[in-house]
């Protein structure tokens, strides 16, 4: 045996390892993964901004005195919350063209994510505003503050602090939900895994890499949320 034997053992070990997990393929596909990683980030980022706008609007409508606005917002929120995101994505993806709208998959995807997340965001903001005790608002009225001043100085400072952690939680959900966009062939992280699987048939390398990249985003957002909660307690 001697030295040659040692080499064979090393070679076999390397071959088995490559059979189990081929790092070379991942290295080769790394540019694709990075491109798709950024695609996931900007698709989710855009949708988060959109969801905040839609959510604030829906929440304002729901808390307004007008019955019509309240019902409209309630209808939107309940129908989004009672149906799966995938059905909503397909609804827009297959439905908008039959209405005569010709828009790209990316725009359809961002609209679907925005509308979906907007409903949950509205509920989070509402819970935050309602968490401010009514006695404080009454105290504001008694000291002669106007509606806007009460909002600005009493309600919002407390509500925003309490809503940041659940909003970050919603952001985590949204990033994960953006994986469904791969099913309408948008090139994002999960799609990268699907491409690698279909081109090389290496699903283990493909989807575990995808999973690790998602976990990076998850831990960053989770850390941010925990940091904020700690700050909230110390204040």
């Amino acid at each position, binding site marked *: 045996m001697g030295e040659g034997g040692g080499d064979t053992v090393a070679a076999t070990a390397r071959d088995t390892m490559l059979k189990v997990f081929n790092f070379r393929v991942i290295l080769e596909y790394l540019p694709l993964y990075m491109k798709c990683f950024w695609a996931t980030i900007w698709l989710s980022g855009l949708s988060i901004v959109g969801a905040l706008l839609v959510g604030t609007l829906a929440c304002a409508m729901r808390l307004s005195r007008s019955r019509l606005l309240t019902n409209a917002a309630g209808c939107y929120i309940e*129908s989004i919350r*009672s149906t*799966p995101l995938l059905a909503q994505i*397909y*609804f827009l993806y297959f439905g908008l063209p039959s209405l005569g709208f010709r828009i790209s998959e990316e725009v359809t995807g961002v609209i679907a994510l925005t509308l979906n997340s907007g409903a949950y965001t509205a509920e989070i903001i509402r819970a935050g505003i309602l968490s401010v005790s009514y006695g404080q608002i009454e105290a504001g009225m008694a000291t002669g503050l106007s509606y806007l001043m009460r909002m600005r100085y009493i309600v919002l400072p407390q509500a925003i602090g309490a809503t940041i952690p659940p909003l970050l939680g919603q952001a985590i959900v949204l990033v994960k939900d953006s994986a469904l966009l791969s099913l309408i062939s948008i090139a994002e992280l999960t799609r990268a895994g699907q491409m690698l699987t279909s081109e090389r048939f290496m*699903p*283990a390398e493909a989807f575990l890499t995808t999973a690790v990249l998602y976990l990076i985003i998850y831990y960053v957002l*989770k850390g941010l949320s925990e940091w904020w909660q700690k700050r909230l307690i110390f204040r």
Partner: protein
Amino acid sequence: MWEFYLKELVHSLPFFLQGLWITFAVSGLSLVAGTVIGFALGIIRVSRLRFLPAIIGGWVDVIRGTPFLVQVFIVFFILPEAGIRLEAFPAAVLALTNLAACFICEIVAGGILAVPPGQKEAATASGLTSFHQLRHVILPQAMRVILPPLVGQYVLLIKDSSVVSAIGVTDVTRAGWLTVQRIPEGLMVFGLVGILYFVICYPLIRISNNLERRMTVVATRL
């Protein structure tokens, strides 16, 4: 033209109901198994055992940090490489059960931690074994915190079950996807899909909201 398509859609209603049955089967099996496993994991998670709580915590984090679609693909495409070959349906149930167990574990652990420590001390002082403490003192009080988010979680999981259509399980969502190839009226077809999910999920959301209201009333009355 759309009257013709509507008639076609009505004709394919049995196909959608078949899909609804598959959605029921996948989510029903996973919810039952996931609840049992989730409660067990949750109880272990807050126990004083040495390594298990940390391992469970890490696993829950990994599952909560990755998209369910990726998890489904991993179960369906990677387990065969390890010699475990699963059909689409069992793969879907396995993935959804795992997801359910992880989320329910966190809810149960949170509920147990919400019980004031004095209760456990009192139970220990009156000589109850740890099983009886859990069964008669801790869990009945924790259930008040657990139940509303648990029902809410069921709704999320039933909706997540739509994702398994991606590996070819013919649930309601896939029934819609197959039908829309034949009847090119996306709004109509997926409107129907949405209604079918709404019929299941909306009552559950109402139940969850009611529970939340009732449970807080009970809690403040104490």
